[in-house]
């Protein structure tokens, strides 16, 4: 079973990413509530990578690759693209009430990711930026 997908960096393709994560985790017998949370986290990261990365002049470099690995219910989501690295961990978690007062529509996506995932690693291997989202689950 292939646990990899490659999409063109376009918000219209986020649905395909969600469907892929959902289907893959279902095949791994992950319970639905956990699937829903991990789908959300991966969607948020991919949306962030799509919306905040300039379109590359080379069509071949405008993709996002996602790979899901499962080692005894320790899940790793590898997300790779050619956008600039942005250290999610150094991103200051916003105060929700402050965002509401400022009438902001954005700013909570990465907060959701941090709440859902156990860890987020980011590295650069030219020409790629690689994000590793990890989540350990305990289920029968």
């Amino acid at each position, binding site marked *: 079973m292939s646990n990899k997908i490659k999409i063109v960096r376009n*918000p*219209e393709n*986020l*649905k395909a990413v*969600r469907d892929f994560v959902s289907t893959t985790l279902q095949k791994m017998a992950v319970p*639905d*509530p956990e699937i*829903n*949370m991990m*789908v*959300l986290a991966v*969607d*948020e990261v991919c*949306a962030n990578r*799509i*919306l905040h990365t300039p379109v590359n002049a080379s069509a071949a470099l405008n993709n996002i690759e996602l790979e899901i690995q499962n080692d005894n219910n320790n899940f790793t989501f590898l997300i790779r693209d050619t956008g600039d690295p942005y250290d999610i961990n150094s991103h200051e978690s916003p105060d*929700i*009430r402050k*965002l*509401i*007062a400022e*009438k*902001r*529509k*954005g*700013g*909570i*996506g990465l*907060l*959701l990711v941090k*709440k*859902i995932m156990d860890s987020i690693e980011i590295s650069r291997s030219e020409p790629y930026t690689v994000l590793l989202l990890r989540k350990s689950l305990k289920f029968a």
Partner: protein
Amino acid sequence: MRITTVKENEYYLIAIEGDLDASSSIQLDQAIEEAVSKKETKIIVDCSQLEYISSAGLGVFMSYIQDFQANNISLVLCHLSEKVRNVFQILGLDELIKIVNTKEEAKTIA
């Protein structure tokens, strides 16, 4: 995603169908903006056909809280699936946005 709006007496109903994500949240924003431009003060969002919401969708609702409180505009969400409701709960937004089970309940508090 598809959005339909209908006026029922003094209530302005917005029904969302499908996935509310980074590619579609603008449509919800426009629907709420339209309600505001029509001077609607009792807005009910029917989420019975809403299958998925991401931070982009949450952000749209979040951005109106301040103005709606200041201008006595009521925004109530109803018929959320457990899956969608869980997303509101992660950041505690379910305590800052009115969420009820049914449209009838929504009408009583709108």
